[in-house]
């Protein structure tokens, strides 16, 4: 933290020094970026930099500024179109497109920020060259600069494209989508025909209160709880299941090891869309499983015991039953993955440890709990965290299995959620499945899912690498 503050301080002190101590060329480069380079003999570089500056200014003035100027209202002119019935010509007014204004506005601001950053580095760079010259040292020619890009400055060459990619592919969309959370963008405010606008913190307030716009507060609390329970259960069960299965298959007495392994891999090689939808049909109220259970009398027995009131077992249509079923089905889907990675790890356990334990008289149970398990846990720790996060966002299993589920909870229904929804499937239901298409609420949920995932990852990862634990297994 201290280093970080010092770095910031140095950054601005350097800038101040460059401006104060710079000669006329360096100072001029504040306005005309290439001036310093040209004045100090690097003409081509100077021209290129000036051209870039002109490009950015032109882009901002001609293209992005009209959008940035409308960012505060996100547009005011609604689209109107008249069709001339005789000529079939459409006459449109000069309407505002809120979505485009937001997107181009954000892009424009990012580019302006980059421009400022560029300006500061440019002045400093000019000052460095000025000093080199004053001290009588060698100033690179343009060719030498180019050559340095493939030699000592090769990292710049390598990282330029990815950095630009990150800005356009990651930062821009993320900022854009966070912005949506502060608007009223939904089915009734859909560009290009309609405008949407800023609503401040309203959506966040709705999300955490039980009044107004349905019962989001209640739903959020319920679904967050279930999401965390689900993620813990799903991660734990598949993890333990996978390791046990791998141990079983690796056991010296197991025959046909490769065959077993391949059989389990088949379950994950078939697309989940197919298996999960098929499974949900098999377990439906009148599906094949219910048919069999009813024929052999299990359904009747459960009825007598008072477990069910229906004449089928509501595997996928009643809460409780469905919660359990989802976890069980997920074991079937998830165990083979863990089995594969555990197999690799088990083969790599240092054999000297196992041997010395055996010589010391440890039994198999002790070896498993004292050596195998801690070793596996250490190796797979990071992937355990990843799979926990993955389960928080495990859309497929939940969504594909619960298509027939109808919630009996009116408060959940009012906000388009089901008891078995994760935050992520709820997000999908209130946009793609609901006629209201509440994109703004989806964005709010998205932000909170991100916060939950980020906090959990940070805590667990920093705990995992604490102390000397990496040394223990060396």
């Amino acid at each position, binding site marked *: 933290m201290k280093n970080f503050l010092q770095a910031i301080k140095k950054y601005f002190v350097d800038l101040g020094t460059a401006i104060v101590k710079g000669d006329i060329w360096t100072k001029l480069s504040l306005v005309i970026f290439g001036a310093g380079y040209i004045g100090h003999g690097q003409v081509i570089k100077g021209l290129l930099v000036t051209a870039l500056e002109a490009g950015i200014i032109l882009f901002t003035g001609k293209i992005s500024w009209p959008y940035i100027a409308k960012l505060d209202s996100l547009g005011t002119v609604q689209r109107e179109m008249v069709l001339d019935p005789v000529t079939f010509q459409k006459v449109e007014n000069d309407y505002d497109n809120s979505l485009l204004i937001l997107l181009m506005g954000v892009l424009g601001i990012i580019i302006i920020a980059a421009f400022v950053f560029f300006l500061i580095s440019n002045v400093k760079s000019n000052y460095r060259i000025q000093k080199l010259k004053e001290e009588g040292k060698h100033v690179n020619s343009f060719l030498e600069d180019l050559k340095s890009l493939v030699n000592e400055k090769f990292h710049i060459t390598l990282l330029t494209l990815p950095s630009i990619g990150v800005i356009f592919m990651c930062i821009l969309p993320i900022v854009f989508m966070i912005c949506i959370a502060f608007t009223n963008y939904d089915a009734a405010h*859909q560009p290009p025909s309609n405008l949407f606008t800023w609503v401040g913190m309203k959506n966040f307030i709705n999300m955490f209160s039980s009044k107004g716009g349905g019962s989001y507060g209640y739903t959020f609390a319920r679904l967050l709880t279930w999401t965390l329970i689900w993620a813990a259960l799903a991660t734990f069960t598949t993890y333990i299941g996978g390791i046990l299965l791998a141990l079983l298959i690796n056991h010296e007495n197991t025959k046909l090891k490769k065959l077993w392994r391949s059989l389990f891999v088949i379950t994950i090689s078939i697309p989940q869309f197919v298996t999960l939808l098929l499974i949900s049909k098999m377990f439906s109220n009148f599906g094949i499983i219910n048919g069999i259970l009813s024929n052999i009398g299990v359904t009747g027995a459960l009825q007598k015991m008072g477990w069910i009131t229906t004449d089928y077992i509501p595997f996928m249509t009643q809460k409780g039953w469905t919660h359990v079923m989802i976890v069980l089905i997920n074991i079937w889907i998830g165990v083979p993955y863990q089995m594969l990675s555990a197999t690799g790890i088990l083969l790599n356990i240092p054999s000297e440890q196992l041997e010395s334990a055996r010589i010391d008289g440890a039994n198999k149970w002790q070896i498993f709990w004292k050596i195998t398990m801690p070793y596996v846990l250490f190796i797979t720790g990071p992937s355990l965290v990843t799979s926990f996060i993955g389960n928080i966002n495990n859309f497929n299993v939940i969504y594909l299995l619960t298509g027939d589920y109808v919630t009996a909870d009116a408060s959940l229904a009012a906000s388009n959620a089901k008891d078995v929804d994760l935050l992520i499937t709820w997000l999908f239901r209130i946009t*793609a499945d609901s*006629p209201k298409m509440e994109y703004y609420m989806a964005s709010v949920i998205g932000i909170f899912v991100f916060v939950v995932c980020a906090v959990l990852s940070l805590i667990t990862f920093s705990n995992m690498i604490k102390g000397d634990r990496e040394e223990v297994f060396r």
Partner: protein
Amino acid sequence: MKKKLVAVLMTAAMAATLAACGTEPETENTPADTNVTVAPDGETTDVVVGQGSEDAIANLIAATEGTVDLTLWCSETEAYQNVMAQLVDEFKAAYSDVDFNITIGSQSESTCKDEVLKDVEAAADVYVFADDQLNGLVEAGALQAVTTTYTYNPIEADGAGAVNAASKDGILYAYPLTATNGYFLYYDSNLLSDEDVSSWENLVAACEREGKKVAMEFSGGWYLFSFFYGAGLECNNLANDAVNVCNWNNETGLAVAKSVQDICSSDAVINLGDADTCTQVTDGNVIAAVNGTWNTGVFEAAYGDGFAATKLPTFNVNGQAVQQGSFAGYKLVGVNSYSDNLGWAMIFAEFITNEASQLKIGNATQEGPANLVAAPQIATPAIAALGAQSNFATLQRVAGNYWTPAGTLGQALYEGGLDDAGLQKALDDAVDGICAE
């Protein structure tokens, strides 16, 4: 009727498994659909027909350069795809001076609006959709108003109910195509008499007698509506598009809920979704079901010479027999107002909805045409039943908040066991959800 993404994926992924059931969709027809009892939002302003239509089309042909690209979205069913391909060929032949490149895409009418609104500018030029999506599409500016037509006048040619369904605030926004989007009762007349299917009480008793079942999707808002509407209660968004008005939680509503719960308390009554209905009907467990024309084939095959269809039964409210209501619906053809070839899109939409085309579509799909001349020429028991039910039907005009709370209410009534206070609370909760802003 809301269709889930799952259903689409299901169909795609496992077409073979579900072959018996077709897809679930949206269409119904009634030859005499003029009785649809919706509060009309006024007369539809007459469209200007053929305002120099010859000249306009001639001008359009003259002004057209190069290939005209058009995309049409219609139902993914084989019957629809085939008949539309045939109509496209006829259209090309009719305007042979122009070079067309017309693509037919698969898009179920029931979810058309969602697809169109994802990106209006990228959506099809001409699309077929269910009439309940009209308001949403108009609001999003995705429909070109039909203020002028060039080859025929839909307001005169099509049934008044269909025209009303295709209009908003007195302006026609789409070309009516079929009039078959509703539900009625299928039954096996070898096992059930006319008397048996006249009321829910008789029907339940008869099914208990036969040891068989009667099916309806109680946990779906689309079907549950029928009981409350039948008893004269209202639930619609006519006053304000975004917000529903609903009075299901008054005294009559309580009586209706009690009645529905009573009906469901019998073991002979089961709550089945569309796909399960098909399976159970085919298995012979279900001898009567509330369903629509899209499954006619399934029922016909299962019931054989006992195949019959009729209006929905009456049910008992406070000791009086009340006729069960229903939603009536239409398939409409809309022109995307963002189309690059708006003129040709309009002419094409007119072409596929004119009398001759509607008759061809009716013959191919067994759906009743909206066209008044074509409609009587397509007659099946299912369409006749829908015609009888249409006297008690209303247009589907509900805002998005209706569906999930109504489904949950239906689920609660089906599960049963609620006393008066419990029912009242379930109704109050449902109405709160339905009427939420």
